[in-house]
C-alpha cells in the first residue's frame, strides 16, 4: 500500500517537473527569439523573422551600439540614478517603516492612512504637477530630478513596517535595559535583522529605476542626461520595427543585461521578496 502511494507520489513529482520544464521552455522561447534576432542582419530579418538559429550570423547590431560615443554616458546616468534611488529608498523606507511599526507619535494613524493612500494614486496622476514643480525649481536635466520623484515609495514603507512588526519585541527590550537609544536599537539591532527585506526592496527599486522610461523621457530632455532606456530608443530610425529589427533586439538585450546579471546573483532574495510581500 505504502509502496503504491510512494509510486504515485514519484509519478506526481515527475509530472510536476515535466510541466515546470515545459512552462520554463515556453517562457524562455521568446527570450531566445529576441537573442537570435539580435544576432541576424536587419536586411535578413526584413525578409523573415523565423527560426531560433542565428544564421546568417552578425555581431553588427551590437557593434553599432558599443561604438556609439554616447552609450557609456547613458549607462553611467542609469547607474547613478538606479544606485542613488535605491540607497534613498532604502533609507526612507526603513526609517519610516520602523517608525510606523514601533514608535508612538501624534497623528500616527492619520499619517499612515495618508501614506497608504499613496498606493492608490497612479503615477500619471501627479505627473504634470511634478514636472511643473521641478521646472520651477530649475532641476530638470539633473540626476536629482531623475531620482527624487521615486524616493517616497509607499509599498517600500509598508514592506519594511511589516518586517519590523514581525521582529520579537524582546530583542528591543533587552537593548533598552542596556540603555541603548532608539536610534542605536534601530541601527544596531533592527537594521541588521532586516537585511533580507532591504535586499529585496533594494533589488526591486534598482530594477524599476533601471527600466524606467516615461519620467526620464520628459525630465532628462538633454541628450547628455538620457538614461540608457531613453538613449537606446532615441537612436532607432523611424521604421526600425520593419527595417531595423535586429538593432532593436540588440538594444533590448544590451539594456537588459545588467538586470539579468543582478537577477542571477540575487535571485534567492527576489523569490523570497515576492513570497514576503505576498504573505504578509
Amino acid at each position, binding site marked *: 500500500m505504502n509502496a503504491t502511494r510512494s509510486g504515485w507520489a514519484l509519478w506526481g513529482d515527475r509530472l510536476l517537473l515535466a510541466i515546470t520544464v515545459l512552462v520554463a521552455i515556453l517562457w524562455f522561447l521568446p527570450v531566445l527569439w529576441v537573442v537570435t534576432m539580435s544576432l541576424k542582419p536587419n*536586411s535578413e530579418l526584413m525578409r523573415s523573422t523565423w527560426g531560433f538559429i542565428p544564421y546568417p550570423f552578425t555581431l553588427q547590431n551590437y557593434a553599432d551600439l558599443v561604438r556609439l560615443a554616447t552609450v557609456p554616458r547613458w549607462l553611467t546616468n542609469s547607474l547613478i540614478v538606479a544606485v542613488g534611488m535605491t540607497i534613498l529608498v532604502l533609507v526612507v523606507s526603513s526609517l519610516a517603516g520602523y517608525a510606523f511599526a514601533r514608535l508612538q507619535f501624534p497623528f500616527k494613524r492619520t499619517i499612515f492612512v495618508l501614506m497608504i493612500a499613496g498606493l492608490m494614486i497612479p503615477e500619471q496622476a501627479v505627473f504634470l504637477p511634478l514636472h511643473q514643480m521641478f*521646472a520651477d525649481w*530649475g532641476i530638470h*536635466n539633473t540626476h536629482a530630478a531623475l531620482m527624487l520623484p521615486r524616493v517616497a515609495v509607499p509599498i517600500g514603507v509598508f514592506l519594511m513596517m511589516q518586517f519590523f512588526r514581525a521582529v520579537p519585541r524582546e530583542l528591543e527590550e533587552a537593548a533598552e535595559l542596556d540603555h541603548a537609544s532608539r536610534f542605536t536599537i534601530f541601527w544596531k539591532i533592527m537594521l541588521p535583522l532586516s537585511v533580507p527585506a532591504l535586499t529585496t526592496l533594494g533589488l526591486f527599486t534598482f530594477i524599476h529605476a533601471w527600466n524606467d522610461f516615461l519620467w526620464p*523621457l520628459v525630465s532628462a530632455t538633454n541628450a547628455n542626461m538620457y538614461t540608457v532606456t*531613453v538613449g537606446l530608443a532615441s537612436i*532607432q530610425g523611424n521604421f526600425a520595427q*520593419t*527595417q531595423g529589427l535586429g538593432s532593436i533586439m540588440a538594444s533590448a538585450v544590451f539594456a537588459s543585461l545588467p538586470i539579468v546579471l543582478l537577477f542571477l546573483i540575487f535571485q534567492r532574495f527576489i523569490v523570497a521578496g515576492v513570497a514576503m510581500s505576498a504573505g504578509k
Partner: protein
Amino acid sequence: MHHSKALAALALTTALTAGGAAGAAEIQLMRFFGDCQNEYGNVNDASQANGECGIITALVNQFNATNEGGHTVVVQTADWGAYYDLLTATYQTGNIPDVAVMHASVLPDFVARDLVTPLGSLFQEAGIDTADFVPAALQNASANGEVYALPFDLHALLFHINMDLMQQAGFVNEDGTVRLPTSPEEFIQMGKEFEEKTGQNYFATESQANEGMMVRFFNSLMWQQGVDVISPDGTTASINSPEGLKAATFIKQIYDEGLADPNLDALGADQAFLSGQAGIELIGTWMVDNFNAQAAGGQVALKNYAVANVPNLFGQDAVWADSHMWVVPKDEGRSPEEQEAAVAFLKFLNDNNFQWSRTGHLSVRQSVIDSPEFAALPHRSSYANTAQIARSLPQTQNQRAIYNAMISDITATWLAGAEPQAALDSAQSQVERILRRSNRGG
C-alpha cells in the same frame, strides 16, 4: 628662430580663425530619424549617404563643414514614438531646440499654443521661395495665412507592385505598365481573378490597428468621393456619411473576400510582399528605395518591382499624405544671431531638398520634382504626380487622437466583424468629441 616664427604663425592663425567665427552660432537641432553616426558621422557630402538617417546626418555634416557663417549644428536625436512628448517637455525643462522636425499633422497643436516661430518674413529675407512649394506642402506648413515651417517632404501612400505576379495574372498592358482597378467593383473582381491565377493574395497592408494604414486608405477614398473627412474649418466630421459607408464597406470586402490577410502587421505585410505572397502592398513613399534594393539584391522572391499612385477608385484623384517639416520652436532666450543661424540652416536644407527626395519621399519643391535628377531616381516618375493629388486633414488640433479613434473603430470591421455603419457611427462620435475639445482650445 624657427620656433618664434611658428608661434607667430599660430597666433595669426588663431586670430584669423577667431575673426572668421565672429557671429558664428551653435544651432541645437532636435529630430527623430535615428542615429547613424557610426556609418555617416564623417560623410560631408549628402549625395554619398542613403536612407533618412544617413541623408540628414550627412546634410548636417555638410552644413557644418561649408556654411559661411561658421555655424555648427548640434544634433539631438529622440525616439520617433515619444518625440513630441520630449519636444513639448523641453519648453518646461529649458533646453528648447533652435530647429526641430515636426509632422504636418502635429503642427496645428504647436501653432495653437503659440510655440513655434512664424517664418514667412524670415524666409523672404533668407531667399526661401515659398511659391516653389507644391500646394499640399505649403498648406501643411501654413496656418492663419502665416508660414510656420519649412516643408521637407510629402510622404504619401502608394501601391507597391510585384510585376511578375501581375504578369502571371494578365494585368500587364502591352506597353509594360500595370493595369490597376478603376472602381471598387473592379478592384474586387480583379483581386479574385489575380488570386485564381497566382494563388497569392492580391493585396497586403498593415492590418493590425498599429499604424492604421487602412485608415489612411479610408481617408483617401473619402477624398476620392469629394468628401472631407474633417470639414475645412475643423468643426465637423463626415466619417459616418454615405460616402464613408461606401469606403468602409469596400475595405471590409477586401478582407471578407480573402484578397488580403487581416493578420499582417507592418513587418508581416512587408515580408509577404517581398516573399511574393502579395501582388500589391499599400504602404508609403518611404519604402520605395528599400524594396527596390531588396528586389535588385536577388535574395527575395520579389524580382520585378514597380510603384504606382494609389488609383482613383471613386471618381477623383486623391491620396493621404503627411509632411516632415522643420520648425523653429519659440524661445525667449534665443539671440537674433542664433535665430539667423537657424534660418540659414533651414535655407541650406531647402536648397538640398533633392537629396532628401532620395529617401523615397516626394520633394515639396516643384522645381525639384520637374528636374531631370529627380526623374532619374528609381521609380520616381511613376509617382511624381502624387505631389499634386496629396491630401491632408485640415489644420486642426489633436489629429493624432482623431487618427487613433478612427483606427480603433474602422479596424474593428475586419478584425472583430463590426458592421461598417456601427463602426463609423462610433468613430464619428469620438472624433466629434475630440473636435469639440480642440475648438474649445483643449
